[in-house]
């Protein structure tokens, strides 16, 4: 259950990156191309952190239990 939650959380985090990118492009289009980079980059950093700090740790802990 914990692993499934961690996995879903990780997937949702990256789906969130896609959602942020699409929203930014829809809102700003050709304007503010440099500024548009920032929310996308921020979303990537958050998704990466969730993957490293939550999903990977949960799976690593499970792996240790199995061994």
């Amino acid at each position, binding site marked *: 259950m914990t692993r499934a939650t961690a996995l879903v959380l990780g997937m949702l985090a*990256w789906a969130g990156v896609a959602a942020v990118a*699409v929203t930014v*492009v829809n809102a700003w*289009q050709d304007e503010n*191309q440099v500024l*548009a980079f920032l929310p996308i980059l921020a979303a990537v950093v958050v998704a990466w952190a969730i993957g490293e700090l939550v*999903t990977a740790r949960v*799976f690593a802990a499970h*792996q240790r239990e199995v061994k």
Partner: protein
Amino acid sequence: MSALEHSFEHRELKDPSFLRFIFGNPAMAPLWLLARLYLGYQWLLAGWHKAWGDQRWINVPGPDGIPLKNFWANAIKVNDAGTGAIKYDWYRDFLTFMSDHGWYHWFSWVIALGEVTVGVLLIVGAFTGVAALAGATLNFNFLLAGSASTNPVLFILALLIMFGWKVSGWIGVDRWLLPALGTPWEPVPGVLEERREHPHPQTPRFGQGVTQS
């Protein structure tokens, strides 16, 4: 050993260490992330204009793909001097065939949604190498059709991302997706016959990177 066997013997030629560092070391992942985000954003923006913008190619009142038809018409046009935007006759014949058969109706959907898909995949880092290849193919076709614009820069960037496919999606979904699917050097047990014949004592861990020890 014959001369042929000597010349073409089976051995792997290693890349120089600096190339292996650039294209295969996770330390370079932040740089690849920036390249990937830039390229992905450009594709998403281009696809967005074609799919949902004011001058969109698809989902319009009336027949779809008229802008693509006009683009093809301009590309295949030959002037009085016998030259045009397209330099290869076979490519001009190819576009002429597609235009004459009205393929612009559905091909405009392929291009518009393809560009959006490539953009999203590059931004989230999923199947990064394949997405970059698809993007490079689009750039290549636009270039063959005589449209330079940003295509040369995006094409080179896509090639570089393809070369660095192992790490270009490292800060992204590929970090988890590639090992889960089974990469050539880390197959999912039972997928490859070699795996069955010579089973590895350890099952690949979920989330274990392809180049991670």
